[in-house]
């Protein structure tokens, strides 16, 4: 339904011969002028500059961070040096970052993302399938519940979450940062809307007549059709899990399951923190997401735009 909103501006439909029709074009059929391109380029530059600059700073020592005049914008030779220090290497005049466990935190975050994405995709797709295509008592009421909870920020329960996790003995463990993120109301909502639109009832009905069980329909029909939507939801879940901060700070800070958010936080500790090291960490933490955006940016954009229109 909205698959074509992203890459089909339908320029062929604009009749070029007719002058009156040319005047009456909708904005999306009007070719952009050069002012348009310049403004957009400036916006992109502002958006990208902090990350780019952090990347540049990861290749320099402290003296290039705070400078008078034009900021340093070309890479230098010290990335390996900074990498060495951030992983606990000892150098004169640098504080020890050994206790930050940067690399371990980075790997933990990758693991957390993998678990969260797998869980989100599985649990949200089966629930979305049930809501879209199965008949059961209380379905509509339960689905309205999902929609309402979309707007409740989970952070507000942070004190309660912490106490519950404490009682379960999960603070400082992998469970604390993965289990609560395994499902999302948005995921169920998105999956349901997609399945509803993409799979005709007749196909499921005929599979049923042939004796396929509910779960067989899920693996045989729903999952293959769902693949693009799973990609989109997986990407959004990955971005969310990687960027988790306040909860990670409360639940796993300083533990062996510390994730990248608290690790960055802890890089700033101490009486003489080195900003170049903190910026190196920030850049390394951002890098996987930049790669993700380059590889799958189109799908992320589509997910955001689709999700919005469907809401």
């Amino acid at each position, binding site marked *: 339904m909205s698959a074509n*909103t992203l*890459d089909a501006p339908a320029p062929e439909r604009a009749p070029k011969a007719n002058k009156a029709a040319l005047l009456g074009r909708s904005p999306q059929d009007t070719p952009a002028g050069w002012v348009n391109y310049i403004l957009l380029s400036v916006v992109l530059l502002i*958006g990208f500059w902090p990350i780019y600059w952090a990347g540049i700073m990861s290749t320099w020592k402290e003296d290039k961070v705070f400078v008078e*005049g034009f900021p340093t914008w070309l890479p230098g030779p010290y990335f390996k040096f900074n990498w060495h220090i951030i992983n606990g290497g000892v150098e004169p005049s640098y504080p020890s970052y050994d206790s930050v466990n940067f690399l371990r935190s980075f790997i933990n975050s990758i693991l957390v993302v993998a678990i969260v994405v797998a869980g989100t995709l599985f649990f949200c797709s*089966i629930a979305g399938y049930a809501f879209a295509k199965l008949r059961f008592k209380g379905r509509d009421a339960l689905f309205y519940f999902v929609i309402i909870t979309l707007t409740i920020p989970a952070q507000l329960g942070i*004190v309660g979450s912490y106490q519950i996790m404490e009682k379960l003995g999960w603070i400082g463990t992998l469970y604390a940062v993965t289990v609560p993120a395994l499902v999302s109301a948005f995921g169920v909502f998105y999956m349901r809307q997609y399945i509803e639109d993409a799979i005709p*009832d007749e196909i499921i009905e005929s599979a049923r007549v042939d*004796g396929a069980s509910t779960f067989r329909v899920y693996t045989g029909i729903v999952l293959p059709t769902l693949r693009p939507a799973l990609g989109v939801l997986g990407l959004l879940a990955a971005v969310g899990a990687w*960027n988790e901060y306040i909860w990670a700070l409360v639940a796993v800070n300083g533990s062996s399951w510390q994730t990248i958010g608290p690790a960055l936080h802890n890089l*700033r500790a101490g009486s003489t923190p080195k900003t170049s090291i903190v910026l190196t960490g920030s850049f390394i933490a951002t890098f996987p997401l930049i790669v993700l955006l380059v590889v799958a940016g189109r799908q992320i954009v589509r997910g955001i735009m689709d999700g919005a229109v469907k809401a």
Partner: protein
Amino acid sequence: MSANSVEAPAAETAGTDDAAVTRPRGPKSSIWARFDHSVVPYVLISPFFILFVAFGIFPIVYSALISFQSYRVEYPVGRDGLSINTFTERWVGLENYQRTLVSWDFWQALINTFGLFILSAAPQLLLALILASLLNRRLRMQTMFRVGILVPYITPIVASSIVFATFFAREGGQANWILSLFHVQTQYGNRTIDGLDWRAERWSAWLALIIMIDWKWTGYNALLYLAAMQSIPKDVYEAASLDGAGAWRQLWSITVPMIRPMIIFTVVLSTIGSLQLFAEPVQFDDDPTSGNGGGSQHLWRTVAQLIWHTGWGNKTNFGFAGAMSWILFVIVVLVAAMNGWLSNKIGGRK
């Protein structure tokens, strides 16, 4: 749109008897078929509901319970020499709420949160609208532009806040470098510095935070607006421009009213987001790992930050933190509802 699609299939198919459809040809026994029809749907949705209720809803309710207790963590040393966490708790009724409502710390945090919310949301949504209309043209490399404006959105919020914290440094920061191009000098007491001492006064700290927030969310909101703009029927514009309406006029008289639901949606979204503001003010501190946030005078400490410091700071007090969470929660709900109502009302007059 989604409301009626929820009900439609149920209404159509409710009449057909499900068992009659499956039984004749299916290889499975009728007991299994009945089970498959009546129980399996609940099996499919139960993981979501169990996890969501246990770790999404219940904690909010549970923090209400905690908020009626004096809930202090103590770390006495056990016989083996290791410290053990114990909670001394007793019911104190509304005492925590009382203490919260008379504490200047809380009110200041509330003022900071709301001030930052209002002052960041308005320019952010306006810029997003303009950005969306820039994108809503026939563009070369349009995918590149759309993906490009998402860079701030995918950047880990801690990372970007750290970078911005260096931009707003007093000496050698890039923000002051830009100000120096305009020869801005500021007087603090009896010393004059080039540019601004961003953390010295409330307004400049807020300004820095607003820049951080808007940098992060403008592109995302622009994409939401773009999605809405592209679902506006094209002939509306054709009619308008035949009547002589220019591009700017079209934006305000057609586009904005037509995407009103989306504008309301983004207002609600940014309300919920801003009232939980945390990473930016934390990282804006010179040293976020010590002190109680927002500089020595807490000029930019938000409620979320105050909750964090109350619950997990030097003097751990979960009851107090729980009371603050609930007050914030009620405010979030009220403000979101009021926002929706207000945007509806204002937009409705058009």
